């Protein structure tokens, strides 16, 4: 029972935290640009407003189901990661799989999203998907090398195991033990968060908001929520993998907030790559970094 409560609480808290982080990032970006920006709570208002819309359209079954795929993928990732180290109730479903499962289940939402975009029949949406998949296949390379390097280095594929191995002080954090792999993973984190210079998927000037171009009303609301949840899930995952996990709720919030700010800040000062530039950069720079640690581990 406590497990189910924990799951519900995890989802609700992550949703709120995710939407809030989104609002903060909008404000921060605006301030860097010298604007006031919207309110911090603007994202909550958007989601609610969209959810309440009376008229909505759809383009077919996959269009209909795509947001559900999206949110399912996000929640699954979230539930597979232990949230707070000390509190095993918040480990949710993480017993059911290891990092491999995590890596692959992250695609669940992406694929659903892509299918919805495809079903919408809008060329921009599909162009964005084509770019997104191309880019994803590139950053997943460095990300998975980094994860494998860390997991092999620590002799476990289980997230709990990886987190547990980092509990001996800050110096035992993987970001210090595996600096190159971490650098690679952190570089891969930027495109994961669609941050500039890798923001080719949502590129508003070229293909207005990308895959969800055709989405509106309740579907869009679900999609926003999914994105927020997925964001938090990724943050928790990165914190667990690289930054020693969260020993308490407070450290969780602090660590995820700081980690979240990293792409926001980077994003607002960089221009955008062209697609092939982005792909090539991701193939060579972060991959090489992650490989260094992999070789170290193998030796």
């Amino acid at each position, binding site marked *: 029972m406590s497990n189910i409560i924990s799951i519900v609480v995890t989802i609700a808290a992550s949703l709120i935290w995710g939407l809030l982080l989104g609002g903060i990032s909008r404000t921060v970006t605006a301030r860097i640009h010298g604007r006031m920006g919207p309110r911090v709570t603007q994202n909550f208002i958007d989601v609610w407003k969209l959810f309440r819309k009376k008229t909505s359209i759809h383009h077919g079954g996959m269009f209909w189901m795509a947001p559900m*795929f999206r949110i399912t993928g996000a929640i699954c990732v979230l539930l597979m990661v232990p949230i707070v180290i000390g509190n095993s109730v918040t480990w949710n479903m993480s*017993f059911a799989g*290891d990092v491999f499962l995590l890596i692959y289940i992250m695609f669940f939402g992406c694929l659903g999203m892509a299918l919805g975009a495809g079903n919408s029949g809008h060329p921009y949406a599909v162009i964005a998907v084509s770019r997104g998949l191309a880019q994803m296949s590139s950053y997943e390379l460095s990300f998975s090398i980094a994860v494998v390097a860390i997991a092999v280095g620590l002799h476990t594929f289980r997230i709990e195991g990886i987190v547990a191995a980092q509990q001996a002080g800050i110096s035992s954090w993987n970001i210090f033990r595996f600096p190159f792999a971490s650098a690679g993973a952190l570089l891969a984190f930027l495109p994961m968060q669609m941050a500039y210079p890798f923001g080719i998927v949502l590129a508003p000037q070229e293909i207005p908001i990308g895959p969800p171009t055709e989405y509106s009303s309740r579907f869009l609301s679900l999609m926003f929520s999914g994105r927020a949840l997925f964001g938090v899930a990724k943050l928790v995952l990165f914190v667990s993998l690289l930054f020693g996990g969260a020993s308490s709720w407070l450290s969780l919030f602090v660590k995820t907030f700081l980690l979240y700010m990293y792409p926001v800040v980077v994003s607002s000062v960089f221009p955008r790559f062209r697609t092939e530039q982005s792909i090539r950069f991701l193939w060579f720079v972060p991959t090489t970094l992650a490989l260094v640690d992999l070789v170290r581990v193998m030796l």
Partner: protein
Amino acid sequence: MVKALAVFLPLLGAFVNAWLPSKSPRASRFVSYVVLVAGLLASVVLSIRLDAWDLKNLSDSVILSTGVGAPPLSINLEITAGGILAAVAMYAATIFSLHRFARTTPKSQPLILALLTASLGLIYSTDIFNSFVFLEIGSISTIGLTAACKCGSRWEAAIKAALVSGLVTILYLLAVATLYRSTGMLTLEALGLLSGGSAILVSILLLTVIVTEIKAFPLAGWGLDFYQGASSVVAGLYSATWSLAVLLWAAKVLPLLPIGNPIIYAWIGAAGLVFSQLAGLRASSSGRIMGYSTSAYASLLLVAAGTTTGSFYTQTVIVLMVFSSLAKFSLFMLGNPEKSDKWSGFGTIIFLVPVLLLAGIPPLPVFWAKFAFLAHLASNFPVIFYTVLTGLMLEAVYLFRFWSQRSERTNETNPYKPSAVSAVLIILLAGIWITKLSWGALDFSGAIIASSALRNVFHSLFAIGTLLCLPGVFKRIGREKNYWFWLLISGAALTILPAAGNGITFYLLWEFSAFAAVIAVSKGVRASRGTFWFAVFASLSGYLLLAGILLSGGSFAIAGLPAVLLTLAALVKMGQFGTHLWNVKAYPAAPGTIPAFLSGTSSKASVLLLVAVALSSTGGSLPWGRVIAWIGALTALTGAVLAAMAPDYKKMLAHASVSQLGYILMGLGLASILGWTAAFYHTIHHLIFKMALFLGAAGVLYRTGTSEFNNLGGLVKKMPWTFAFTLISVISFASIPPLAGFGSKWLLYNGLVEQGWLPVMIVGMFASVVAFLYSFRLLHGVFLGQLSPRNAHAKEAPLPLLIPQAILAVAIMVLGFKPTLLLNFLVPAIDAIPGLSGLAPIIQGDMVLTTMGTWNAWMVGLMVMGIFGFAFVFYWISGHKPKYVGQLDIGFAGEIPPSADEIHYSNNFFRPYKRALAFLPNINAEKIFSGVNKTFGMLGDAVRALFTGDGRTYLAHSLLFLLLLFVFLNGGM
């Protein structure tokens, strides 16, 4: 009396016919048929009396003595059992072809009968001068028939034959004079009495005569020109009678020549085989191709004469020569390819059977002889074995090209020419007969794969895979022809394959299945290129398999080189390591459900082979397992990239298939329990999803008639079920939990990490991510996006295609949620194999544990389905129902989009990715293979420059050959 009738009846007929045709063509034809049929009956009676049909004692004979007294005073004809079999074939061929001559040139009947007489006399003759007389009758009749036929180059063909026959006469008579002066006798046995200088002289003279007459390289020039220039009917009759007789006569004389060590024949033959077949690659006219094939068999005869003796020699020669001659006969009887046609149904088979026979494919008669012969070579003369095998492979290439080009042409020629049909029937019957005789060599005890559990896995995979392809066989589109029979044959052979207990059984079933599949592919529309490549690679893999089996002494108890060859055979069959060319060519060309069968089911035969090799060499480890794993990983990656770029649905699936097979290699290469579990799991999984995908593709093709992405899209509205099943398969092969595909990756990665093969694993992981590219491309390109007006009429795929997909989709779900059902069976079976390293995964309920990882598929499945179901139901029941809008009703800058086709983003889908890859050198398999092709072509051109077309050059060849032999023999003494 019967003896005399069997030999001399045609002669009487010839004499009678010299008078009759001008009187009454009818009567003369009647006389010809009567003497031929009577002679045939007499020969059959003799053959039964000699017990020739069990092919055991082919040297048994009856003597037909002539003249006064006994040899050496008079001449005997020795009717051997082997000879009488050839005679039956000659009679039959003459009977079959007579109506063609009787209709066009009735006056040529005496010549035909004289030719037959000469052929019979030559194979029976035991006297060297008597042979000469028959040789001359044969040459003259041939020249006469050629000059009288109705084709443009007849004079030239005839004059070249005449030139060569003139030279042969001179050389032969010199040999006769030398022989008589030295020994005082003219029987063939007298050759053995020669010694010293005259022995050498007679040997080189006769050997030159023989090599020239049987048209073996390098003295084949005139024969090639002759086959090219003569009309097909004449060439056909010639090859079934005279050419065969000369070959058998040569087979009789060669062992008697006082040449010292007969291995020199084998060397002339083996080298000649390779060179002539190289040149054959460049031949384009069908007559010339047959000429090169004749040359190949002549060279084989030389090899046999040099390496075998006794009844084995006789058997090999008789079976090889008689049936190859019949095959050439039926090919020629089908007419000129330049006027020939794309035949339907059995027409193609009538054409194909002889081609397959010449290429030595089971169960056609030549197969058994070739197998035994090559086995003998492999164990005694390895270098000659390799040379011969190379030559045969080259021959297979041009034969299949010949077939594919020829079956492509169109016209109204009737393939059911009685002559050709009857010859093919005889070949088939003989195939059954010889197969029955050789049946004892087969072994179905399953000894190759000792573990019955693993054997059963393969048995059921092959059976189920074939069965699921069957319902859809009648849903053919356009001009696709009926292929169900060949599918069934191929599938049946595969299903038996795991039970094979020895090498020959395995090889037989393997080839049987492969070439039934080749025929099935050829039934497609414009399938000739695809079939050609398929056939070439199938025979390449077949020859590698053969070499591996034979070098390991006919069994699978092997290590070292044979194991490597067998492994290569499997890799070629899988399309790994650059050989994917055939998959990419054959799958799109193949009709209906055949690609599903090939990719899903048939490709697993190579997995079986690898498993067999691994089990029999060193207990589970493949030779160079790490290399194989790397090959698998790199193929997985390149295959995935190529699949993402493919412009065609079926082509993409072909690339994807090759790519996915790479994972099986990685698992098998590991030689650990986890690796093998992963390999078997993925084998099963690959069968399921790839069949579902290809069956879906078959449905799409059936309804839309196209498989190009540019013409597809938006079909989800028309074919929702096909889409659903395809989606499930795609999610599965993209390894996304909770469907079955994740399991194979999880097991594989755990295995790779356990053995520390991290670089392989990284490449594999990268490949699996690239797989997302093509998986989305596949779904979008066909089912999503805008529906083209072209396909507005499309309907859901027919049920015979849909139901198997549904079954497979359910299997994916079940395997995805409850992989332990399978693992509980697989893991103990694999754990029981001795020699595999690593630890077995531990299965606790739904939980699977390795030393480093955990996986609870059931919980993951519940979680995903729970959350998805909750969101779905919540959205379904709450709030306002969304309204469906048309496909053109999209946000398009406030305008109405022009047309569905223009806004469907499909062309050059992953262009940025391609651009990002631009730094790589642009290598592709097709270029490499066309480079290989070009190189071989250049070599072939260099060789065939020898055959200048000038008759005198051919004479010079013969004389130079004679001089070289002289130098060689004197140097060797």
